[in-house]
């Protein structure tokens, strides 16, 4: 009988504990709630954690000014669209008011639909495909797959525009006669850039001599792809991919004595700070990226120093984009003035829908420009894509140098 009583006691305690959790959502806000989803665990965790860390730094800085207060929360989506929607829903249960989107592309395509239905302002640091924004015609088929979601904006370059910009850059700077491409054909990011690069390259008369691919299951050995580029006599290899694969490709090329020019995109950023990577391999690699951790301007220096102090590593482009997202929202809210009540307090209980309308109007206003770590004088139009200039960088002596 005693045992039975014990169990009843235990159950009661459990139920009471659950009731505590249930009661959490009721109090009034003392900060604007920013939420986002990203891969905090699993294979892509490096991106999610970078964004999470940088957003926290930005929020801490803004809160320290003593004006409007923000609160930021990232939920883990393990780079899976299904989990991302779950994570988004749990942020909704937390009463999120502004969404910092998803860190990676495919989850971003899923959560942006939900955010559009809920009419929450959605500014993603790094989910870069055209379908996150919607309303953009696929460069290959010429049709629009997803309707434009009017509340969704990007801080990063959109994949197709990166491919196009890369082709234009290579063509105008006459960087290569024969071009080889290696891309990851089961990934939205890599394929999206490749498709538009190929179209633009054909239009500009660039000579593509070799195109090889890899997937999730074959991303550890690149001997076939590099050998194909070498055999085709390519003098420039275009690598639209994230840096961990590029690092292996550079190593493989060195091993077989193949030394073409390598050209990367913003996913290449971070290669110099990768653990165990011999930076001499990246010597002469060119990339288009909006962010440079070695830049000399005050803002970048301060951010990199702070990030390094708190998290012990050099921030990558994802971190910089996230940092900019928070500051762009801060600026769009007139540094908090837009939410100020007459008595000097802030209206933290504003609904997500009202905030959304306010922010869409601010972001698409013709006089709204934002200067941050990833670009000067960025602007947005109603199509959601950011307009900023990519910086051509070349790696010399283990550091980026502007081209």
């Amino acid at each position, binding site marked *: 009988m005693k045992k039975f009583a014990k169990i009843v006691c235990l159950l009661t305690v459990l139920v009471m504990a659950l009731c505590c959790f249930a009661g959490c959502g009721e109090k009034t806000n003392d900060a604007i709630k920013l939420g986002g989803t990203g891969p905090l*665990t699993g294979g892509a965790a490096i991106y999610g954690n970078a964004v999470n860390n940088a957003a926290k730094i930005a929020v801490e800085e803004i809160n320290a000014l003593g004006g409007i207060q923000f609160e930021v929360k990232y939920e883990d989506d393990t780079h899976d669209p299904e989990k991302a929607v779950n994570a988004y829903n749990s942020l909704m249960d937390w009463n999120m008011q502004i969404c910092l989107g998803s860190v990676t592309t495919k989850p971003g395509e*899923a959560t942006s639909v939900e955010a559009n239905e809920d009419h929450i302002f959605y500014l993603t640091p790094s989910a870069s495909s055209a379908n996150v924004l919607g309303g953009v015609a696929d460069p290959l088929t010429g049709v629009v797959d997803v309707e434009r979601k009017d509340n969704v904006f990007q801080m990063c370059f959109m994949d197709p525009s990166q491919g196009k910009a890369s082709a234009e850059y290579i063509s105008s700077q006459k960087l290569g006669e024969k071009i080889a491409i290696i891309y990851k054909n089961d990934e939205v990011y890599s394929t999206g850039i490749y498709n538009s690069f190929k179209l633009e390259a054909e239009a500009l008369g660039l000579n593509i001599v070799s195109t090889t691919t890899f997937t999730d299951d074959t991303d550890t050995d690149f001997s076939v792809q590099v050998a194909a580029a070498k055999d085709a006599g390519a003098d420039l290899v275009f690598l639209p991919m994230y840096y961990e694969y590029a690092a292996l490709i550079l190593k493989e090329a060195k091993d077989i004595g193949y030394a073409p020019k390598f050209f990367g995109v913003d996913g290449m950023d971070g290669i110099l700070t990768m653990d165990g990577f011999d930076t001499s391999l990246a010597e002469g690699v060119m990339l288009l990226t909006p962010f440079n951790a070695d830049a000399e301007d005050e803002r970048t220096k301060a951010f990199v120093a702070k990030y390094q102090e708190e998290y012990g590593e050099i921030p990558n482009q994802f971190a910089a984009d996230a940092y900019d997202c928070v500051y762009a929202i801060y600026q769009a809210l007139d540094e908090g003035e837009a939410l100020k009540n007459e008595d000097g307090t802030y209206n933290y209980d504003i609904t997500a829908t009202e905030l959304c309308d306010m922010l869409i109007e601010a972001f698409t206003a013709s006089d709204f420009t934002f200067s941050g770590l990833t670009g000067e004088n960025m602007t947005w139009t109603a199509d959601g894509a950011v307009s900023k200039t990519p910086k051509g960088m070349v790696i010399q002596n283990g550091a980026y140098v502007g081209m």
Partner: protein
Amino acid sequence: MKKFFTSKMKKSNWLVYAGVILAFVVFQVMSGTGALSSTMEGQLVPVCAYVVMALSLNLTVGVLGELSLGHAGFMSIGAFTGAVTAAALEGAIPNSGLRLLVAMIMGALLAAVAGVLVGVPVLRLRGDYLAIVTLAFGEIIKSIITNLYIGMDSTGLHCSFLNLNFTMQDGKMLLNGPMGVTGIEKISTFLSGFLLIMVTLVIIFNLVNSRSGRAIMALRDNRIAAESVGINVTKYKLMGFVISASLAGAAGTLFALSQNTIMANKFDFNTSILVLVFVVLGGLGRMWGSIIAAATLTVLPELLREFSDYRMLVYAIVLILIMLATNNPTLKGWFARIFKRKGAEKE
């Protein structure tokens, strides 16, 4: 009729039906009154899909006694067939419920065809060959779908493999290779998920209690003895396997049409193993166990978000505890004593 209700086997089956209906009614009411959180609300349909997946794999592993490590492959076929069918028929069948049904049937059919293709050569063999072949099958399906492009415009369907080599003036891409399917219209509802679970249960229980079902189980228990009484090994194994595959296909359609976007990578080896974990934890051949395990283990990671960074660690610990608890004789005896005493008090 009286015999129908009194037989022990049947009684437990009716309890399972009743449990599923009860759960459906409770959650439907909670959802209608707004008592469910957004997290739970969003999980209702995927949970139904995983429950059907677990039930269908339990048919292969528990009843048929063959190990399948590529069940997500069948789910994938069902998911992409269903998503493409539903999008293609958007104009032809305006009623979303009917469109979902047609998509599900198409998904189940194609998954069944794949089941036959895999099953015919492999189920003739003895040993764990099915595990090896299904493992490869899942990966092959992933590769095929990653390289498949299907579009539809006013001139009809366009299709290409490896490279996208057609252009369209209007219409939309139904399946865009590595980018998967985007812009899915979410027509799966909790009701349709519930109905699919019920249909699955009816099929499985009736199969298990039929002459064919007894033949299948006889093969599982002792192949030589079953062959000696003239049971056609390949036929009955194939029957069980193909039914299981087609149910997985239907579950895939249900799942795909509850998501905003799907990619072939989603249905990889890990998903197959996840479903296998549902089946093993719920108990081989025990359908109610599969239902509870699938529902609990799908929702659990979301409930554990409170633990933030330690979430998956806690999840693993919970898995180990469940395994220990369900197989611990002392605990079993302990629970048995409690229930006995409760019963005694009532009297």
